[in-house]
């Protein structure tokens, strides 16, 4: 029968060995939940912003209700809670103009009218496309050519709506 001293610390050793994958799993679960939340938030924000844009079409050109790339970008950023505007790439497309915001924060201060343009008449389509690089530290635990990298998954959302007026 082995002596007590041979067994001392064995539970601690086993715990140490099993704690590593357990902590990995717990951190992964939390980050997966965060990723899902951002996935949904992005979709909701894009849809909401597209709806706002759809009711600010040609009818608002030259009016007080006219919207710009700046106001649209800031509206989208405000709805996309928890998503950094510096990591969010957005394309605003309409029949009259296309504005690319890579990242979204570059459109802050852009006073170009969108979609309140004469070409965006009732019935024409506008589209807002957004992609977001979701970075997770999960991969810190994975070997990668000796370099620890934050793994990224591209989350996206798209909404196409007809200009109402």
């Amino acid at each position, binding site marked *: 029968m082995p002596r007590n001293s041979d067994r001392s610390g064995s539970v601690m050793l086993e715990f140490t060995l099993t704690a590593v994958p357990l902590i990995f799993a717990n951190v992964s679960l939390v980050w997966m939940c965060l990723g899902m939340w951002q996935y949904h938030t992005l*979709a909701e924000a894009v849809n909401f912003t597209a709806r706002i844009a759809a009711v600010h079409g040609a009818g608002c050109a030259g009016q007080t209700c006219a919207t710009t790339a700046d106001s649209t970008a800031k509206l989208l950023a405000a709805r996309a809670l928890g998503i950094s505007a510096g990591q969010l790439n957005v394309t605003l497309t309409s029949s009259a103009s296309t504005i690319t915001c890579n990242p979204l924060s570059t459109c802050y201060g852009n006073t170009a009218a969108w979609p309140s343009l004469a070409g965006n008449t009732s019935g024409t389509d506008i589209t807002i496309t957004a992609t977001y690089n979701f970075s997770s530290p999960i991969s810190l635990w994975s070997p990668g050519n000796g370099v620890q990298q934050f793994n990224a998954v591209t989350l996206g959302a798209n909404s*196409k709506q*007809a200009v109402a007026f």
Partner: protein
Amino acid sequence: MNICRSSRLSAGSRRGSAAVEVGLLLPWIVFSFIAILDFGFCAYAIIATQNAARIGAAWGAASSANATSANLTTKACAYAVAELQYAPTPVTACGAALSVTASNPTVGSLSTVEVSVTYTVTLLAIPGMMPGSLAITRTVQLPVRN
């Protein structure tokens, strides 16, 4: 003496206990992963399908010309495809994973547009609990504006 024997026995019985505990916990951890992914995908699919149906119906309800247009289903399908472009099971056209029906029923004296979108999302199957795919249908009916 009895205490010493008991102590030796319990020390011996503890060998491998942590590994066994992790082994017992592991299925629940894996289950949690799959459940979170499936729940997240389902939630996204439900929201996107609802939005797709509403956008299609809004286009149809914008005018009586749209409501009676032969393109009503085609337009509703185009909006649904755009809305579901980044969905868990991406779609590029109406077909097996995405189907759209649109009609122009009259409720009393009110002309309406009804758009129904069915989207089939692919999931990670949990045997006996969660199927490998789930068909989500959302219907929106709106009155025609003019």
